[in-house]
């Protein structure tokens, strides 16, 4: 190799090596350590406490935990402001702020409060802890009632149409087509209604709860529109049969219209009673 080139390479190597060595030594000068002891209010050490040391300026955190004597330590910290969050089971999390100077060995002891437990409030572990099954029951209930609501609202559409077509189906001048249209819409209403009712009736009950508020009105109205939804098609079938034979609607079947109107009104009121809530 050319001696000049060799000298140049050697010089560059020495420069690179010296710069590599000088960087950590500068960093070591600036780096600080943070250590301390975590105790409870009685002064006892808290082992296995989780320590999160957050650099306030960068938001970066260093995680560590206390040893059996409650000691913790963190090395190679840049100078600056830090937030130390200490958490441990059965204790409330405590956060302290410390300023760490360049190269300092900062001590930050933290006291954890939290010797109180739910038992001190007279709450047993059974009362404090729910179950996945209880939550699943609530979820199922909400899901079924959501379906009840949707089918119920959809049923209102053919219900209105059934009422609207009743004038053509039940008056003096009626046509067979009007009666069939009325029958078809009424059947669709019934199907949707009973599907909706199924989800309400079989939604899981939550033990220890009693109906309060608007839902009581909603449930009370079901005692009107429920039997009405059974009675109306029965009376309607008799009236349909009488009309089809060319007879005037008579006897018990003549109550079909009145029962249907009361049923539809109760149904509408039931929807309104729970419409403006969540």
């Amino acid at each position, binding site marked *: 190799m050319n001696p000049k080139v060799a000298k140049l390479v050697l010089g560059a190597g020495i420069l690179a090596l010296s710069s590599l060595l000088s960087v950590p030594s500068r960093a070591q000068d600036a780096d600080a350590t943070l250590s301390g002891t975590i105790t409870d*209010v009685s002064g006892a050490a808290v082992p296995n406490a989780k320590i999160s040391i957050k650099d306030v300026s960068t938001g970066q955190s260093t995680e560590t935990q206390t040893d059996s004597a409650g000691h913790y330590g963190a090395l190679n910290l840049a100078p600056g402001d830090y937030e130390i969050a200490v958490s441990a089971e059965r204790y*409330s999390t405590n956060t302290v702020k410390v300023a760490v100077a360049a190269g300092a060995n900062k001590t930050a002891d933290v006291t954890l409060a939290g010797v109180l437990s739910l038992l001190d409030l007279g709450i047993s572990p059974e009362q404090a802890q729910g179950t996945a099954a209880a939550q699943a029951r*609530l979820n199922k209930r909400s899901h079924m009632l959501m379906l009840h609501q949707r089918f119920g609202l959809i049923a209102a559409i053919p219900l209105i149409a059934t009422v609207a077509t009743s004038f053509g189906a039940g008056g003096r001048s009626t046509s067979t087509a009007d009666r069939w249209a009325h029958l078809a819409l009424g059947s669709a209403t019934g199907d949707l209604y009973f599907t909706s009712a199924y989800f309400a009736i079989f939604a899981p009950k939550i033990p220890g709860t009693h109906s309060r*508020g608007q839902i009581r009105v909603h449930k009370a109205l079901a005692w009107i529109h429920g039997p009405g939804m059974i009675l109306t098609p029965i009376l309607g079938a008799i009236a349909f049969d009488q009309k089809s034979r060319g007879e005037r609607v008579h006897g018990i079947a003549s109550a079909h219209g009145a029962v249907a109107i009361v049923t539809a009104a109760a149904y509408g009121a039931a929807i309104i009673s729970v419409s403006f809530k969540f």
Partner: protein
Amino acid sequence: MDRKIILALFLLVHPLRAAVDSQWVLEESTLTYHVSHPLKQTEGVSHAAKGKGVCHAGQCDFLIAVSVKSFDSGDSNRDLHMLQVVRGGQFPLITVRTHLPEDASSLATILADLEVQFAGQTVQYRQIAFQHVVKGDDTVITGTIPLTLTAFKIDPPTLLTLPVKNEIPVKVEMKWRPER
């Protein structure tokens, strides 16, 4: 047996008692959550909170717990829906922990750092202001905890496809009685 030995044994099996200088007991409470929706405002109230505070070496540690189920909005159907939404079947309690210097009881406004456990999540709230009034033997604390649904990973319930607001502030009114 020597009385001192009995006392020592008693303190040994009751470390909490040994460390405590004074206690506070929650006598009465009214907690009210407020839910806002573009079409409706709703409030749910609970008077069922239980709470206790213990003080030692100038520091007081408080724990308050309330059952999610105890909140009453006036409609059981809505309350059960809320119970489901906030995962109350699995996490039936809301607990709040805080610790304060014992001399905070002399201040008209107390700034407290709260640790709230709710819906299976733990969230820290810093420097929440509570007003503090002494009435006879009792100390009445009032304030509002600014809970949000997202902080507790709760999906907001909807009405007519519109979700409720994320903020569900909980107004707190508590009457504490010291026990020494």
